[in-house]
């Protein structure tokens, strides 16, 4: 539900969203290319993007409704800064293939989900260095849960901020959006925590922010 639909936001917000997203994609791709060609990375990056796409289709029931996972924190932890273009691609496909989100709001929605992914990457990387490692699995699990939760909270705040540009008449709609997402923050924290703990145990090279920066 952090996907804002078409037809809600105003032209300046849509335009700013596209401008920021295009700039961030260019920067993140350029930053990764600096260390060598990313041609090699593209198939791998895309396969992971597809896996995230599928994982985000899983629905979890909360009371009468069901929610789908957002997973931007996990994308950040695994893909690092390339999470931003990956999320953009994921959102294009969600808009085109599922009518989820919208076409004109792609820029804005990529900001809402991509910035939290970048922040999650930063937190995970920093936390991993700062906290002395006793048990790698439980540390990664806790950090994963933390970043997963923070990423959703941040994504909701950014979405709320975008809606707030419409005017203060929308206060109640924004409050409803935030309340709706509180259980999702908890669910995502648990799930992202267990995914990260699992990956550290089974395939640690998958986690880009474990210091294993792609050479």
């Amino acid at each position, binding site marked *: 539900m952090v996907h804002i639909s*078409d037809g809600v936001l105003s032209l300046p917000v849509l335009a700013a969203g596209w401008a920021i997203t295009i700039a961030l994609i260019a920067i993140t791709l350029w930053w990764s290319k600096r260390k060598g060609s990313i041609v090699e990375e593209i198939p791998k990056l895309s*396969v992971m993007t597809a896996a995230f796409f599928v994982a985000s289709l899983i629905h979890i029931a909360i009371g009468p409704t069901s929610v789908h996972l957002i997973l931007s924190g996990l994308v950040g932890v695994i893909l690092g800064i390339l999470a931003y273009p990956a999320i953009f*691609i994921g959102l294009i496909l969600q808009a*085109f293939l599922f009518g989820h989100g919208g076409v004109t709001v792609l820029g804005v929605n990529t900001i809402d989900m991509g910035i939290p992914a970048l922040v999650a990457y930063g937190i995970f990387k920093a936390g991993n260095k700062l906290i002395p490692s006793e048990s790698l699995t439980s540390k990664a699990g806790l950090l994963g849960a933390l970043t997963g939760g923070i990423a959703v909270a941040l994504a909701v705040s950014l979405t709320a901020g975008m809606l707030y540009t419409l005017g203060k008449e929308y206060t109640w709609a924004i409050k409803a959006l935030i309340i709706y997402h509180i259980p999702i923050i908890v669910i995502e924290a648990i799930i992202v925590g267990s995914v990260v703990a699992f990956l550290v145990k089974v395939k640690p090279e998958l986690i880009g922010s474990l210091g294993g920066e792609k050479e």
Partner: protein
Amino acid sequence: MIEYPEIDRYASLDSPLHLFDPRAKLIAFLFLIFSVVLIPDLKIAFIGLFFAIFMLILSRIPLTFVLSYMKWVAMFVLSFFIILAFTFPGEEIAEFYFLSITAEGLYTGSLITIRAFSAVILIFPMIGTMRFDTTIKALDRLKVPNSLVQMLMFTYRYIFVFVDEFQRIWTAMESRGFKLRTTLYALRTIGNAMGMLFVRSYERAERVYQAMRSRGYTGNPKTLVEFEIRMKDYLLAVSIIGFAVSLHTISFFLP
């Protein structure tokens, strides 16, 4: 549990929009979508909606198919509509106990709903009338950066593989008696299943990449399909864009 994303299920029908040049079609419809979502007036928004429905009829894509795709947007927009109707400040026109509906809330809610529905409907004449790989090729011809086009292509391809993959993991879990509830245990189990999906996809990605390299992949995909733009494509594109522009010019002449 998970459905296939089959936007191009009706790509093989025969209609004027199926014959429309993919590049011209993308540009014309994207322009139109941007135009309808920015309509400031409810009456004109309805004209936009009717035009979107007209385009859908022209494309011959069945309505039931479109309706099933609209559920996400409907969920978002209708909850927005209800909240706005009750909370938007303005002239009160109806009251239920302590809640009241305002005229301004209804107007704004309807405007947002109509614009959002028009935009979703227009995706079908645009994307649903050609195979999705044609859409990606058209984006490539329209000079979308190569790395993004390739990511789009590979990601699209692998979504189908992973839907199957996850379905297998899921069937295995269910056959061992797992039920998806909102409990800590169930959520952690889902987390592990997702982790397994990532591990398998990563390993598959390695193999795919090796196989592609050994067949001479350099990062610059070559395609065999060539597009040919004709006079009638220009005409159709210009008339759609003209309509999109007129949606905004007529709003100046309204009271």
